[in-house]
Structure formats: C-alpha cells, structure tokens
C-alpha cells in the first residue's frame, strides 16, 4: 500500500475521480472545496460523455477516430499523446461509471443507449437523461463518501484555497486554505497538491458556469509561478438561455436528438414561430454545413449564430439577439425521456414549454480550454506513460492540475461531451503518478515555510477587512470586468479592442485596490471572500487578453476577422486550383508560425510574460479544418496531393540515402 498525504483542491468530477483512485491506492486524501462536493459545477453538464462503443465500432469507429475528431475539432492545438491516451481510456471509463451505478439511458435490450454530438459522425455519447454531469458526479461522490466513512478521505467543505506553499527549491510542499465559516486559516502540508478547480467563467461576469467558477484558485497558483497555457481559448457555447443572473446552458444534446436551429428569412418576422411556413424559415446551419448540419463543432455554430444576428440582421428579436432552437417536431414522449432535465430548466426559467414553442437561445461563455500548463510523459505507443511523475504536473514540481483547470486536452476548441471524459480521465490517471511522486520522498517541509505563508495570507485578509473609506464597490467592478471581457474577448476579436481592453482591465485592477468592504466582520464574510477572488480574476483576464492580442490568426474558438482565411472565390476550375494552392501555402505558413501553445507566466510587474511552445503533432499531421468552407473540397484535394508528393519525396530521399550507404 502506498503512503503519504495528498491535498486535492476541488471536488468536481476530476477531483473526486482522483480522490477515489488515490484512496483506493492507499494514499490519505484531504479534499478541500468551496461548496459541499456534491454541489460542484460538474452537476451542470447535461448532454453526455463520449467514447467509442460496441455499436460505433461496428460502424467503423475506433479509438483512433475519437482521438482524430478531438484533435481536428481542437484545431491541432493539443499535444497529441495525452489526447490519444484519453480516447483509449474512453470505453473503460464509461464501463466504470456504469458499474458505479450511473443510470445511463438504456436501449430496449438493456444496453447503454448513445446519441450523436457535435464534431463527429458517430453516436458516441452515453447519457443519463439530460443531467449526465450530475449523475456522474453523484456516482463519484458516493464512492468518496464510502472512503470517507472508512477514514481514508477527509473533506474540508466550505474552504478556500489561498496559495501553494513552495520550499526554497521551488517545490510545492502543501497549501494554505481558509475556512469560509470561521474565516480561520490552516496550513496543509502535503506530499503533493492537486488542483481540480474548474474553469474561470466568472471573469466574463455572466456565463453558463456556476458562481464558484471564479478561476481564483488557478490564478493563485499562476501568481505563485505556475505557467498558464492557451488562456485565450475560451469556448462560447452556441445555445444558452439569456438571464439576468446567469446564462443557462441549453445542451448540445437538444440538437443531438434532432433539434433544429433557424431564423425567419424575413428579419424580425413578428408572427408566432409556429405560424411561419417551412419555406420562410432559414435553417442556416443545415444549409451551410450539409455534412454535420446542426452538429458542427461549437466554435463554428457559435460564430454562425452570432453572425446571423449581427452581420445578417436576422435575429428573432430586434432588441435582444437570439435564434430559434426548435424541438417542436419531435415526440413529447422522447423529449421527456431523453431531454427532460434541460426542458424543465427552460420551462421553469422562461415560463414557456419548449416542447410546443421553439426556444430562443444565444451563445454564452461556457468552458476554458486553456488552463494551468501541465506536463506528460510520452509512452512507447504514442500515449501517456502511466504512473510517470510528470503526468499532469504543473511547472511547479509537486503541484498538479486536472480537469477543466488544466490546458491539456481540448486545444483551440472542445468537442461536446468530451469534457466529462477529460475530467474523469485526468483524475483517474493522475493517481498512480501521485503515488510514484510521494512514494520516494517523505514530506518534511520546514514549518517556517508554512508560518511565513500563513502570515502573508492573514495580512492580505486583514488589509482587505480594514480598508475603509474606499470608493469602489467590488460587485460593480465585477460587472464592469464581465461586460468588458464579454464584449472584446469572446466570439470576435480585434486587436485595437484588445489593446484598449487590456488598459481598461489594468484600470479596473487599480480601482479594485480602492475597494471598500461593506462587511468587516470575521464570521462567514462572503463579502471579503468575493473581493479576494475578484482581485485574482484580473491576472487571468490579462493573460486572456494578451494571449488573444498576440495570436494573429484564427484557430478554433479564437477568431480574428483581420486574419481569417476565406474560402475560394473563383468558379473557373483552373483558377480554383490556383487559389487552393495559395490557400494551402498560406495555411502551411500559418501552421509554422502559430501551431504553438501559448504559455503565460506571471511577471513581477503584474503583467503576463508570453512565450510559445511547440506542439507534439507526431501522431496526426496537422491538416486544414474545412468544415463548410467555400471551395473546401478543392482545397482538400490539393492538400491531399501535397501530402502524397511529400510522402513520395521522403521515400525518394530515403532511397537515395540507402543507395549512398551502399
């Protein structure tokens, strides 16, 4: 049995999967969470979890294709070995969750049912109604409760992670956390610290994320020296329900089960949508993307919905941008059985029954593809080496990151139903690495390290509490930050706006220093906790903006019109080929320049220092992402010919080399 004590921060899918696996391997776990772990944001995931399955396999699917879809969907911005490993683990993970009692929907014969999700042509997505995230989380929560009852796990719920404690050599030796009820600080010495703290949606004010997704834990690790990867890649989900306090998700599964997106052809057609005849409806995704239809990858669906409302002026309403997501042609019985959970949300919050009236939806910030930079060790078969100490380790030795808060699996755009997989996978997979890391060296961090860190945190806390007479309101500042980020760093990005926004964020940060607290008490003070996390949003906002500013290209969710590569305009075949050749030249040049991870480090001056890291694309060579591009078929043809020429060229050279050797 392994020994040691590990601190896990965050009890969503990733944190719970890691905790369960480590407890099983004999490691004692302290599990810290802002909320009771059963209330973590993973509960909001709706649609399902992807994996190759018995059925798709017989239709020609395999792990490699799932891997390829994920890489292609992510526009090649991921190191490939970890993604390959994840796709390989998919079937095992679904089986495991099935054994843990997740009530997956069933076929008449009693097998797990699957549905189709975006960015693939196979029905890979297993689901439990439309609350799959909730069901997966509960299954892991139950297993962790079982280990807790056996004394192998200790939960610290309503606790906030404040900083990792590093020794003189820069190794993480534990962390400082705060009790959100008593406001007391506590030092947690640990052999390793694992961050599983999710995304940073609150940097955008309102998003589909829960109120705990502030990004503050990740920001604190970043400010302590951990590198942050691909921060500018933020997924904007195509379909959400606008709301005053939150933009509630309307799952991709609504389209996976046959939901259709449309707008009236006549702008702001005042008729009841049900009265508008088929011929006067514009099913723009189906028309423009005949192959994938309503299930194009999310970045593309989002841009199309955004454009149809803004550039093309076809928003359903004049003052509020939205399009129809229509389920009314589907049977109520099927809808209740497969989508009940999300339809209830719409009905409850909008007061309209989506089974009989088309929903009105619009894109919303949804997922952080970027996150803490983490390492991996490549295995002989091109995957990840199980148990290697480097797997999921941040740039700070001893500090690990898993789940949405790492940057590793989704590149420039995440495919629907891949996040639940990456969370559970990284959680399970990190455990043996932690065992390897803790087995060798017992933790003997000097107490002075913890004392100094505790003093630092107490001082930060006291100085916030004692701030009187400041003229700034943290809640109002947060709204300003959110609208600014939403305006400049979501669907469409322009350099002049990003430059200006960076300055504005710095101003907001300066104003934050003048925040006055309305609660100076030391008992369950949510005011100071919020203000603290707001302060930690600025470094993240800055690295998102700077990363976006510097990246002069379009890739996945990062779209800059000034650098877009439009399709082919010519109609004459010869001219078309010439344009396609030029297009491919430009694509190759862009790949050389920009197919790199953005790596941000927190500078001493408070500004992010950006560098770039090459990507391991050794398993699947990068190719143009041509979903629905005009002239895409010609480009694809030219691209394939180039590939063949290159392959023959390499073979010819190899033959020459062999000849010379003789």
């Amino acid at each position, binding site marked *: 049995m392994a020994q040691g004590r590990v601190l896990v921060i965050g009890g969503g899918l990733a944190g719970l999967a890691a905790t369960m696996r480590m407890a099983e391997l004999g490691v004692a776990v302290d599990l810290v969470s802002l*909320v*009771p772990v*059963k*209330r*973590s*944001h993973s*509960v*909001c995931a709706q649609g399902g979890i992807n994996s190759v399955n018995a059925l798709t396999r017989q239709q020609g699917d395999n792990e490699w294709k799932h891997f390829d879809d994920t890489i292609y969907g992510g526009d090649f911005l991921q190191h490939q070995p970890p993604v390959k490993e994840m796709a390989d683990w998919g079937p095992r993970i679904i*089986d495991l969750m*099935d*054994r*843990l*009692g997740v*009530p997956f*929907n*069933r076929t008449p*014969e*009693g097998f797990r049912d699957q549905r189709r999700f975006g960015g693939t042509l196979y029905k890979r997505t297993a689901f*439990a*109604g439309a*609350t799959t995230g*909730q*069901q997966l989380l*509960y299954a892991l929560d*139950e*297993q962790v*409760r079982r280990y807790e*009852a056996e004394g192998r796990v200790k939960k610290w719920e309503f606790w906030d992670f404040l900083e990792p404690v590093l020794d003189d050599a820069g190794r993480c030796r534990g962390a400082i956390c705060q009790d959100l*009820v008593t406001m007391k600080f506590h030092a947690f010495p640990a052999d390793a610290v694992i961050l599983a703290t999710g995304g940073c949606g609150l940097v955008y*004010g309102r998003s589909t994320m*829960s*109120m705990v997704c502030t990004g503050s834990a990740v920001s604190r690790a970043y400010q302590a020296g951990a590198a942050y990867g691909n921060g500018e890649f933020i997924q904007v989900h195509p379909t959400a329900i*606008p709301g*005053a*306090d*939150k933009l*509630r*998700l309307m799952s991709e599964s609504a389209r996976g089960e046959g939901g259709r997106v449309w707008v009236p052809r006549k702008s702001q057609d005042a008729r009841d949508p049900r009265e508008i005849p088929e011929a006067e409806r514009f099913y723009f995704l189906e028309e423009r993307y005949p192959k994938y239809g309503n299930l194009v990858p999310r970045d593309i669906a989002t841009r199309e919905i*955004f454009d149809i409302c803004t550039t093309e002026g076809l928003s359903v309403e004049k003052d*509020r941008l939205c399009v129809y997501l229509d389920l009314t042609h589907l049977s109520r019985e099927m809808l209740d*059985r497969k989508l009940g959970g999300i339809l209830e*949300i719409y009905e409850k*919050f909008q*007061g309209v029954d989506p089974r009989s009236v088309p929903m009105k939806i619009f894109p*919303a910030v949804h997922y952080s593809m970027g996150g803490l930079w983490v390492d991996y060790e490549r295995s002989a078969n091109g995957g990840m080496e199980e148990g290697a100490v480097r797997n999921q380790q941040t740039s700070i030795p001893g500090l690990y990151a898993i789940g949405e808060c790492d940057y590793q699996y989704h590149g420039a755009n995440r495919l629907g139903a891949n996040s639940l997989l990456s969370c559970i996978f990284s959680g*399970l997979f990190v455990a043996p690495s932690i065992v390897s890391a803790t087995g060798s060296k017992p933790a003997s961090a000097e107490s002075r390290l913890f004392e100094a860190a505790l003093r630092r945190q107490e001082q930060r806390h006291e100085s916030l509490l004692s701030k009187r007479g400041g003229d700034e*309101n943290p*809640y109002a500042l947060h709204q300003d930050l*959110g609208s600014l980020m*939403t*305006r400049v760093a979501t*669907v*469409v990005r322009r350099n002049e706006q990003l430059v200006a926004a960076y300055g504005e964020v710095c101003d907001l940060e300066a104003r934050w220093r003048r925040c006055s607290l*309305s*609660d100076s008490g030391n*008992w*369950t*003070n*949510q*005011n100071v906790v919020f203000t603290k996390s707001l302060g930690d949003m600025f470094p993240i906002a800055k690295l998102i903006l700077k990363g976006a500013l510097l990246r002069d290209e379009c890739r996945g969710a990062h779209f800059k019109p000034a650098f877009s590569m439009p399709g082919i305009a010519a109609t004459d075949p010869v001219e078309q080929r010439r344009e396609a050749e030029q297009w491919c030249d430009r694509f190759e040049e862009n790949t050389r320049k920009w197919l790199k991870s953005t790596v941000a480090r927190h500078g001493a001056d408070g500004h992010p220092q950006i560098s770039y890291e090459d990507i391991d694309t050794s398993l699947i060579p990068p190719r143009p992402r041509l979903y629905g591009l005009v002239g895409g078929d010609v480009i694809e043809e030219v691209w394939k010919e180039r590939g063949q020429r290159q392959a023959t060229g390499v073979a010819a050279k190899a033959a020459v080399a062999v000849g010379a050797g003789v």
Partner: protein
Amino acid sequence: MIQAVSPSDAEHDSEPHAAAKTVHVRVLRQDAPGQESYWERHAVPYEPNMNVISVLQKIAERSRAEDGRQVAPVAWDCSCLEEVCGSCTMLVNGRTRMACSALVDRLLEESPGEIELRPMSKFPVVRDLKVDRSRLFHALERVKAWVPVDGSYDHGAGPRISPEEQEDAYPLSTCMSCGCCLEACPQYTKIEAVRRDDESEADFEQRRTAAFDRGFIGAHAISQAVLFNGHPTGRMIADERLASLTAAGGIQQCGNAQNCVAVCPKHIPLTRSIARAGRAATVWAIKKLFDR
C-alpha cells in the same frame, strides 16, 4: 461581442409588476449561531425576469437597508443558479424552495407588496440565510448510499438494466440534497450541537455525529436506500441498508404527512420510496425474526 442581454431590454414590458419599479424584501437575519435573529427590510429596483438570487445579489451590491443604513451583505448559499446543485434552499414567502428558480414576478403574484426570505428552520443557522446541512449528508452515509464495487480497476460494463428499471431509478438519482423534504417534514426536528469550551474538535464531532444518528434520517436518505437496493450490485448490501432504516431514527419515525413529496423541487416520488422501504423493512424484520 456577445451582447449581454441587459434585463431592462427584455420582452416583459407588459408584465404586471413592471410598473412597481421597486421590489421590497424582508429578510430574517442572524449574525452567527446562538445570536438573536432580526428582520431587516430591503428595497431593490425591479427588473423583468428577476429571481431571488438576483435580488440577493443586488442587496449585496447596495449594502444598504431600506432605511438607508449601511449593512453587511446578506449571507446565503448558491452555486449553479439552475436548480441542479441544491445549494440555495430557503424559505421564500414561507415556503421551502430553491432561491434560483423562485421568480420575482410569480412571488409578487403570490404575495403582492413584499417578498419574505427566511433561513431553513430545521438546520442550524450559520449566518443569515446560510444553514449547516451536514446532517443531511451524514444520513447518506448512514444508509450506505453507494454501489459497493470492488474498486476502479476494469471489470467491463455494469449489469444489464432494462429501460423500465432505468426510468424507475433515474428520478430517484436526481435528488440534489437540497433538504426541502426535510424542512417540510413534521418528524424532522432541528439538531443544533454547540461546541463546549472544554471540548476538543474531535470530541465535538463525535458527539454531534451521535446526535445525528439518533435523529430521523429523512425522506431523501430513505429514497436513496431504495435507489441502491434496487440496483443489481447495490442490493448486495441491501440488508445493511435495511438495518439502518429500521434502527433508531429510521423509517418508523415517518408520520406519513406526505409534505416531502409536495415540496420536492425535482418531483421525486418520495412517498413511493418510503412505502417501498417500509414494505422491505417489514419483510426484512420478519425474516430476521425467523432466522434467529
């Protein structure tokens, strides 16, 4: 450049309360455990589509009571804001429910003029509307609400399950541990343990857990026991669950008031679960009698 849909330009100009402009709120506050509670009035500008969460967010932002006094923000729990995490349970206009799905327009129809917010009464108040529901989670441990798998190593798929069984189990599995059923239950009474000065943290925990163990287990946990006793692997420890369901604080304490099922925000058939558990417990008790 997603346009933040500002609530003011939404489509509800014709709403009955749009003219009211101000929402009046009465909050029952308490600064800490053991302190006196007190009422405080707030007024926030009305917006279409508001829910209780956005009202509380505005109260926090203003930090002023209706009379203009500066006050600390009201403390409350919330997270997902879409009624799936179970955090934001409170008494809204006297009824236990989730603050996120409590829409202001409907509340004002229920009781024009003012919205009343109180903390749940069956759990100790931590501060204001925030209560300590650890007893609720402890009850899940009491009934061993988990599938006792060998471990996480690969053993292939789980058992085959018919669509009917899945459709039976799924609703029970959507229980989000919000505690509405417990708040509404006449048999569920508050247990508030206070740590003594001479008591260590560990001794206090032990004493508190013992008190929880004597208290009524609650509809949510009974329903979870039924869920796991219905699962092909889960039922391998069915007897252990039935033992805890028939121990002190068990299912025999249920008075069949049926309030639980009436207030459940997820419409979980809790009384059906209780009936099933009751039958199973009786059969089990008789069997145990003969096995002696």
